[in-house]
């Protein structure tokens, strides 16, 4: 029950204040914003992209709504969630409320007027592009904000990092494309020519973004490892208790497998997209996006306290 010197030596486990619910929230908010952005961009591309754009515009706001369920369930006082928007001048949670709320409202308007139950926007291309332009801007803010939310925490240098918003942005775009690939490959008409072309296009876009994401993951961890203050967090992922999830879950299944699949599917030699493989690749890629959020949330370690020439750890302390 008492504190021992060993417990307080630098190193040890990551943060345990925020757990899987926050990781799930960050992930789903990213997927939703990514799916909406992908759908709206596909809508700009014009004919031939109807299924992908309608699916993305519909799934996006709904996934973001689901994400907030996790955030509210994580509160100690779930009924007080309305107070979360009270201090946008200094708190990134409040700013998040002011980003997510208009995003969901614009997204729902977009669904109601374009997909179901009305189709008013179909004949009004200017209004549609204007609405979707605003929607895309809010979607991008949603993706970046999840990184800034963690980045505002100064004593956790694993989060207080300029690369993190970029990493979350790329992961949100990639998982957004993957949820569309999954939805399209699940549809009974997946072998039809129209869907086939859209699936191919989504895989091509995702290969580019996932490739960038892999590079950013590398440089993010490289940068964290190079700085003594954030090295314990990087070591937790690379060789410590989170290493199995990092290497097997994120690197092999969540990034390498979907990326290799997409590159093979796109090669001139392959004539068609295997829907079963596309489904598997997108499921693994989505799981990778969730694990990425979990690894970053769980791997955050506070800088040790410095006193009398010693370093003392404040996380993982014994209490009574």
């Amino acid at each position, binding site marked *: 029950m008492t504190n021992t010197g060993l417990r307080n030596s630098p190193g040890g486990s990551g943060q345990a204040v925020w757990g899987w619910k926050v990781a799930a929230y960050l992930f789903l908010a990213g997927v939703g914003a990514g799916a909406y952005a992908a759908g709206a961009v596909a809508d700009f591309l014009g004919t031939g992209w109807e299924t992908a754009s309608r699916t993305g515009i519909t799934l996006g706001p709904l996934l973001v709504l689901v994400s907030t369920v996790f955030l509210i369930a994580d509160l100690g006082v779930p009924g007080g969630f309305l107070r979360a928007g009270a201090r946008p001048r200094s708190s990134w949670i409040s700013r998040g409320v002011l980003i997510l709320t208009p995003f969901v409202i614009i997204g729902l308007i977009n669904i109601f007027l374009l997909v179901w139950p009305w189709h008013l926007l179909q004949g009004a291309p200017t209004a549609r592009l204007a609405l979707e332009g605003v929607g895309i801007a809010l979607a991008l803010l949603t993706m970046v904000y999840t990184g800034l939310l963690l980045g505002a925490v100064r004593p956790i240098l694993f989060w207080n990092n300029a690369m993190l918003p970029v990493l979350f942005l790329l992961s949100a775009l990639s998982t957004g494309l993957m949820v569309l690939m999954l939805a399209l490959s699940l549809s009974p008409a997946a072998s039809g020519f129209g869907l086939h072309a859209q699936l191919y296009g989504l895989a091509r876009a995702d290969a580019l973004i996932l490739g960038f994401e892999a590079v950013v993951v590398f440089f993010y961890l490289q940068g964290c490892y190079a700085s003594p203050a954030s090295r314990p967090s990087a070591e937790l992922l690379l060789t410590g208790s989170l290493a199995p999830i990092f290497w097997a879950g994120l690197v092999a299944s969540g990034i390498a497998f979907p990326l290799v699949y997409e590159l093979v599917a796109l090669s001139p030699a392959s004539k068609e997209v295997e829907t079963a493989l596309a489904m598997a690749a997108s499921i693994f890629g989505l799981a990778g996006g969730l694990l990425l959020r979990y690894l970053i949330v769980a791997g955050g370690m506070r800088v040790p306290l410095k006193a009398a020439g010693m370093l003392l750890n404040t996380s993982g302390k014994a*209490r009574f």
Partner: protein
Amino acid sequence: MARYGMVIDLKRCIGCYGCQIACKAENFTPPGITWALVLKNEQGSFPAVRRLSLPMLCMHCAEPACEKVCPSGATVKEEDGTVTVDYETCIGCRYCMVACPYGSRYFNDRELNYYGDQRTPYEEVGADPPEGWESKPRRARCTGRVEKCDLCSHRREQELEPACVANCMAKARYFGDLDDPYSEVSRLVREKGGFQLNPELGTDPSVYYLPV
């Protein structure tokens, strides 16, 4: 305006945990919640070994990181320099716990007794204080909220020092106003080289330590 703070003399501290227990007794904190925690560390190998006891509490920072991230406005920097949590406003998001560099904040996620389901008579007093009892019924109020040291606001109202200071048998703790240049705490910081924990994080703590 005042800036209540504390000076802890690490040379006088004998690491007895008296402050930690006095705080628990005074504030009825449940298991796992220690507003005043003593951290310990050892360094070196035989025969050149050093030990350090570092008594912790809320640093009542001049630039509190917890207050900046609080989305509901529950955490407030008061006129007297202390940082407080309003249990009515707190939504238990724990952003402040993540942002505090000192680990001085605690989440009271559910009611917990020291000995099973049954409250001890002592815990009964803490949960439901009798009429005229000066201690605040903190336990009953703050489930689902984040809580922390408030420099014994109920004792200060009666012009008593915080419990951890009154109870320190080594006289290693001093309480006072850091804004008053003639106060004992200001003099100690000035004359004995008082230092703050991790000042590079920009929090400007109101708890100073005197070097070993």
